[in-house]
């Protein structure tokens, strides 16, 4: 049925943009750090310091060894609808007209936007002053014009010829980060360095082109084009220092990616999907995804069509890690209580780190019998903020945060962060 067909097509497009290849992640927050709102720079010990501040490897409170296997941090935001609307969006054909209109009303004229950030430390291992981490990162976003959302919700209006795909486009980057960290004491100050080897996975830009409407044939064709680069490598160096002016106070600072490189593959491939009226009238989303993936072909440097070049225009733009300065302090007034504060600022461009250019965070951690509880707040000192909480039960660590990412075009951008991990460490501490 025509009203059903566009919806299947719409979801297929979103799936094609956001999924397709297995996501690999790079850790930037551990569940414990996330539970404290990110105010963890001076609190982190053991394997947790690999991607924060290697200088903490020599601080008191560091276990003889620690192992995290695995950990997962997932962030998702939407512009307009909230995540609570997702079940009704997913089952839009079962939702009432009033409910669909209610959701549609939350989408601004410029369209909606989906963002995700997935970090998956496959393993993080610390022994003494040395630590090794292997993690996987996947970040992506896709904008969808309001007209496309209307197509999904309401189906194709036969007499309507003003459909515009607008800025329906997406991007994705996946990578592995293999990090080796080392810390040592220099007098009362701890210093450390982390070297990163980055193995690029997939870099992608995609775009939906304006529909070709054949009035007399009552036909429509819509092209969805993706340009991908697979593979690449980069290097990075973090430097950090930490100091305890008093036994229960820690000051810790680091600069991530103080030097870094990232070179993505120049062997580009293109995926090209054309949706026709036949697809709209009889949609097979999985078949459409298959066609999309099977359309993949290589493109050489002087053999790309103009549309492929236009789609690829921002493929490599800021596809690297920015230098980030972090400074934090932690205070442990009692044995089971820790308070943390941290500030963070991006010192340059780069879209493979988090979306906030700067951050101020406050967090608290309280150990009680059997469990440890955490809470925190953070802000980008602009329009975004988050509130978080977390818990550790034995080796299991869980954190969750509600993210408010400001407003755009009169609509709110919000989301959630969820994290999970297993952390094992020795009770004996190094000195």
């Amino acid at each position: 049925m025509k009203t059903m067909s566009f919806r299947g097509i719409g979801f297929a497009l979103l799936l094609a943009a956001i999924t397709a290849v297995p996501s690999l992640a790079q850790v930037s927050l551990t569940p414990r750090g996330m539970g404290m709102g990110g105010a963890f720079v001076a609190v982190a010990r053991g394997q947790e310091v690999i991607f924060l501040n290697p200088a903490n490897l020599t601080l008191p409170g560091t276990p003889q060894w620690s192992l995290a296997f695995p950990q997962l941090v997932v962030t998702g935001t939407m512009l307009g609808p909230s995540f609570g609307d997702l079940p009704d969006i997913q089952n839009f054909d079962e939702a009432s007209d009033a409910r669909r209109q209610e959701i549609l009303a939350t989408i601004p004229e410029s369209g909606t936007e989906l963002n995700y950030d997935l970090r998956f430390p496959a393993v993080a291992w610390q022994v003494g002053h040395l630590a090794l981490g292997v993690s996987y990162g996947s970040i992506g976003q896709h904008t969808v014009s309001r007209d496309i959302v209307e197509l999904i919700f309401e189906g194709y209006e036969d007499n309507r010829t003003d459909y515009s795909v607008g800025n329906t486009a997406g991007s994705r980057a996946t990578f592995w980060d293999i990090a080796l960290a080392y810390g040592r004491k220099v007098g009362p100050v701890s210093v450390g360095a982390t070297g990163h080897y980055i193995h690029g996975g997939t870099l992608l830009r995609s775009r939906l082109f304006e529909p070709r409407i054949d009035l007399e044939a009552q036909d429509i064709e819509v092209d969805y084009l993706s340009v991908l680069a697979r593979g690449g490598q980069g290097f990075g160096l973090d430097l950090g220092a930490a100091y305890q002016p008093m036994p229960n106070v820690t000051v810790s600072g680091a600069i991530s990616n103080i030097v870094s490189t990232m070179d993505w593959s120049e062997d580009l491939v293109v995926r090209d999907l054309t949706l026709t009226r036949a697809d709209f009238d009889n949609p097979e989303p999985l078949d459409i995804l298959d066609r999309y993936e099977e359309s993949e072909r290589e493109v050489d440097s002087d053999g790309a069509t103009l549309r492929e070049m236009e789609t690829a225009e921002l493929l490599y733009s800021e596809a690297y890690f920015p230098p980030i300065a972090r400074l934090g302090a932690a205070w442990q007034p009692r044995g089971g209580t820790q308070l943390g504060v941290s500030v963070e600022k991006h010192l340059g461009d780069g879209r493979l780190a988090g979306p906030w250019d700067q951050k101020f965070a406050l967090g608290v951690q309280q150990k009680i019998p059997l469990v440890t509880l955490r809470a925190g707040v953070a802000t980008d000192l602009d329009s975004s903020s988050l509130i978080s909480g977390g818990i550790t039960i034995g080796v299991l660590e869980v954190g969750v945060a509600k993210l408010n990412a400001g407003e755009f075009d009169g609509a709110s951008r919000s989301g959630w962060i969820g994290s999970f991990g297993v952390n094992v460490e020795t009770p004996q501490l190094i000195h």
Partner: protein
Amino acid sequence: MKYDFLLAGMAALALGACSPDDQPLPFGTDDEVTKVIGSEGGTLSIPAGASVMIPAGALDVAVTVELAVRDLLPTIYTADALFFDVSPVGTQLNVPAEVQIRIPDSDDAWLASVVNHTPSGVEEIGNTRVDLAAGIAAADIREFGMLALVVPGADAVFQVSTATASQTLAPEAIEVVIGGTDSMTVGCGTPGDRCDGLTASASANLLARVEDAAAIFPVVNGILRFDGNTVTGEIDLSTSFRLKMESGQIAENVTFSAHVEPTAATVVTETSTEIHLTNMVYRISEAGESGEEINQFVDTLVIPKADAADGSVTVSRDFQIQGEEGQLENASVSITVPVQLF
């Protein structure tokens, strides 16, 4: 003190930290590219803003194809246009190749059309697809030549604003002498010899679906020979109706050709004010060499004499579009050619 130095060193490192430069795209940077293209087809592109996609089967044998940008050249159309050579110029293709050219900034960008200068002549491709959002125009070519994307001049564009209003320029007289072996010749539409006096119109329901419409590069040519009460010859008319869709982001085309010729039953009759050619066959088809025939009918061609007003011949292409209630309804685009005898 050495720890102060350590902190100072960290601060200095922070100040010196910087991001790497953006990696450049691996596309060529030259203004020309050469490739050997065989029967399997291939694509050439240059960053100046053009690509040529040659499909499989377009060439029978391997050909060294070059795409190169030429300097800005003055045109008979509008402002200077950037020309692209696709060589060997004159190479005929079995299957059309698609050219994509970046659209220049212009308020009338929706009218942008590809022009192909070949040894066979100048082909003004009214059937150019315009994507204003992407900034790319695309058209099919069957012969390699010198390409440019131009916005046609006012003399080649016949704007359609409403179903009843239309643009009409000064009428062009068509000279005929009746008696003996006489003929009626008409020819206009080539660069430098545009068709004056044409009227372009469209049905109201079609115009309600689009933001703007215009007939581009209309061409009329042919000859009718009168021998007593019989007539031989033919008249051809072709044009492309460019339709700017309601989104304002794309422009599509409805093309048609009209071929008018006498049948065996055609008889020439005459009144004081008109000449009637009965049983003339009208063949309406899509424009282009492989244009599919859409409609054929027989009608009387009426040619007003010199002192008659509003003499004209109208050819239309009829088709169906979705109505507001989802039903199919008739729509049409028409070209009216002023005709007059002296």
